[in-house]
């Protein structure tokens, strides 16, 4: 399963990268969102999968699956949510003032 997941992560990363390399700001933001999903899965996979029970002492006896990556991912999810929210707002404010969502047209130049 680990290998399968790593490959899935690779696919997600590739798609995310392609999106990040596009000109449309929404696509780029979606790319970063997708990248964060991929990364969270990667962290979980790196903590080795399905090799134990749910890490709840009340629910089952050990061995438990590695709980630390789960805690890390939780923090990461929250942070990525915060960041995504901010980026979205920034993006539409930028669109609102610059009247374009094409990052190519947002290059700006020296004589402004």
């Amino acid at each position: 399963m680990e290998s399968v997941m790593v490959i899935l992560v690779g696919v997600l990363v590739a798609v995310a990268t392609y999106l990040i390399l596009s000109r449309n700001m929404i696509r780029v933001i979606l790319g970063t969102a997708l990248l964060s999903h991929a990364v969270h899965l990667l962290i979980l996979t790196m903590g080795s999968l399905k090799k134990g029970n749910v890490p709840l002492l009340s629910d089952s006896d050990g061995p438990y699956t590695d709980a630390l990556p789960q805690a890390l991912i939780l923090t990461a999810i929250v942070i990525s949510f915060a960041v995504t929210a901010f980026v979205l707002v920034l993006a539409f404010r930028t669109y609102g003032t610059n009247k374009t969502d094409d990052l190519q047209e947002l290059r700006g130049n020296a004589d402004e």
Partner: protein
Amino acid sequence: MSNLLIAPMILPIMTAVILVFLRGNVRVQRLMTLVTLIVVLIISLFLLMEVEAYGIMRLDFSGWLPPYGILFVGDAFALLLVTVATVVTIACSIYAFSTIGEAHENMFFYSFVLMLVAGVNGSFLTGDIFNLFVCFEVMLLASYVLVALGGGKRQLRESLKYVLINVVASWMFLVALAYLYGAIGTLNMAHIATRVAEVGQDPVLTTISLVFLIVFSLKAGLLLFFWLPGSYSVPPTSVAALFAALLTKVGMYAIIRTFTLMFPHNQEVTHAIIAIMAVLTLIAGMAGAMGGRDVKTIATYNVLIGVGFIMLGLAIANEQAFMGVVYYLMHDMVAKAMLFLCVGMMIYLTGETVVKNMSGLIRNYPVFGWLYFVALCALVGIPPLSGFVGKILIGQGAITSGDYVLLAVGFISSIAVLYSLLRIFLASFFGETIIVLEDEVPIRKGMMGSLIMLTACMIFLGLGANYMMPFVEAAAAVLVDPSIYIDAVLRGNE
């Protein structure tokens, strides 16, 4: 006692939150910001003395012993940077008091500044690699807001680029963390170091360290500086100065820790790559600074030169070079803040950014002009100002290690700095004055005060170098011999 270690991070955060309730009361906001920062400064100075006297200090949060809990580790290196960062923030805040405007102040401006400095201080102090990520994010989120705050067309546009690149970088950081945890199974930096040392840094671990290198390089502006020029040129002066002083430093700090503490065992590969990246950064910085036609561009590319130079010191990697790195980091924080404040002030006074459209400022604003000149000399590394000591130490390190190419590039860069900054001085400060007396925009006391404060710091860091040396030596000792750090962290709980 060791609880004080948290103060540089928690006090700004708490004040920042409290300021939310004081919206509208600008005076109280300013006062609280200033008081908090001064308290943090006093505490960090105190901690510095303690650490110098009794060795590395650590604070295990909730009392969980490393490597299981998170901890702050106060060594001289971290605390020096915390101290200087706080000083710079004080200066930039004072500058902001008289320039930023009520609209910003009522939009939680000081809260964000405090959060930024909290994130920076936390990044310096933390001993846990995942916590470093979180501290980074505190800093970055605050910087995202600050860079975009109240922006028009151009500011928002550049902010978006800055934010997007940094977001991608942050997620790359997580990739690196995932790999690290997968391979090493721990997050405490000292513990990582012992585990890496245990197996010798094999190619897999070196690969991981390189992922970290790329991630931190994005933050440090080491070769991956593409976000930097745009985003430093748009925010208000005090923010730009704060960015120039702090943001890249945190990235560099992380790189330094990574390759002195956690992954120091494969230097033929890692340090060679760092050296190449540093040289390329220097070249890019020199090109940008020499080719720049407006003050902001010139100042911005000077930031890159600073980055490249410091990273040269890391690539050289011997005791003298590390001392130089520590010293130059401190200098660069102060001097870059100064440079950006000066540049911002020039724009404020003239409404111009292009060098040749300004002239004769020194007649109208003599004190300001001379302060800029002092900053120029400091940045070039002219003794006895702050840039000199670090430069010499890195130079000595390079000679000791026989890295003559790095030495040459590094020292040539200071000529580029001279050339680019001198151009501003000659074209904008010297020359026929074009501002008639009636049109003179007055410089407010706060603005001048912050410049004088930073200048005093630069002079102190140069002339008073001897007072700094014990700390710098202590800091470099840890970089040279990570076991000091590791022992301090993992002592007594194996």
